[in-house]
């Protein structure tokens, strides 16, 4: 039950893009085409889950015991940057076809604040999946990260679908490009607000 709650809440109710405003830059940047949006979502999904696993362990078994929590931000961003580089190198060697598909998105992910945001949230915030509120355990943390990333993908793919249609429409000149996209996201976010109340 709690697992289901984590998944639904992270994907729909607290959607990372539409209600938490994380990862907006790539969300607006690469959502022009459905195919690139799918690729980016897959890459983000992979990196968020992996980064949360590593930073969670780093925080619990290294920073906290040594009383070095003040290095949290710096340590996390370095881990994420290194991880992205590593994933890139490994993918290139192991699965060139997957690298072809995700490769160009990987360098962009280091500065995607969704990754750092989720990593920091997981180790500093109390969550309320089922009562009472508590800090997440490792399993929950990874599941939450994965579900959040899926939510990112859902928002991204929905939005790129809308945007492909928008591109064919005749919009006033001042609205062209990002402004009309933002207004569309606003309406999409309103639709997602309908989910709050479920979990």
């Amino acid at each position, binding site marked *: 039950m709690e697992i289901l709650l984590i998944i639904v809440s992270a994907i729909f109710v607290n959607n990372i893009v539409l209600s938490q405003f994380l990862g907006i830059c790539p969300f607006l940047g690469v959502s022009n085409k459905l195919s690139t949006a799918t690729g980016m979502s897959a890459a983000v999904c992979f990196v968020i889950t992996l980064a949360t696993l590593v930073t969670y362990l780093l925080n619990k078994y290294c920073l906290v015991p040594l009383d070095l929590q*003040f*290095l949290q931000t*710096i340590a996390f961003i370095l881990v994420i940057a290194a991880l992205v580089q590593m994933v890139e190198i490994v993918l290139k060697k192991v699965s060139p076809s997957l690298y072809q598909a995700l490769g160009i998105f990987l360098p962009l992910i280091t500065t995607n604040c969704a990754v750092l945001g989720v990593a920091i949230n997981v180790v500093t915030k109390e969550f309320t999946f089922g*009562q*009472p*509120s508590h800090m997440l355990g490792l399993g929950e943390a990874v599941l939450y990260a994965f579900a959040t990333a899926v939510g990112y993908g859902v928002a991204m793919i929905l939005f790129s679908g809308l945007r492909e249609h928008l591109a064919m429409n005749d919009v006033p000149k001042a609205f062209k490009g990002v402004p009309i996209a933002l207004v569309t996201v606003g309406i999409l976010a309103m639709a997602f607000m309908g989910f709050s109340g479920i979990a």
Partner: protein
Amino acid sequence: MAVKSTLTSMVVCLTATCLICSAILGGVYAVTAAPIEKVNADILKASIGQVLPEGCEISEAMELEVGGLPSEYYVATKDGETVGFAVKSTTVGFGGPLTLMVGLIPGGTVYNTSVLSHSETPGLGAKCTSDPKFTEQWKGFDVISKKLTVKKDGGDVDAITASTITSRAYALAIKNAVDALAAVPAPCSEVSAGDAAEEMIGGNDND
């Protein structure tokens, strides 16, 4: 433009940057740790002061369980007599944890409440900190004769408009605090509380 990228220069540069930055951070942390602690202590103290009668002495934090979670409470004394208790109580609101400081005076009355932290929606649930219609009702709320649930659920609490979940969580936090204090075994509160604590507990038993 820059130094040539050899393995040595890269390793030296990265190591040096990390060392220098960590050293700076360590230094700043050491300098600001004391003020940060003081600020947090002040916030806690201010919230305790807000929920208890003025001019009384506040005891050190004491442990108790509120709503099944470890929490803490403080005893207020004036001229050696116990005049109230402040209990920290956390429940789940609409957006996340909702933590209150609940001030209770012997006889089963709420003196006042204050929100320590919340993540409710701005403009809706977040009004639990500011809407006078909601916050004023707690002053002198009689927990023995009145029911700590919102009116929609058959209780006596006026909910914030359009924020029933937040109001429920708020009422539950107060109820948990009252129950937790009632369950404190007498020896625990003997430190400075004494009779008044028992009176308080007695008051609740009559409920």
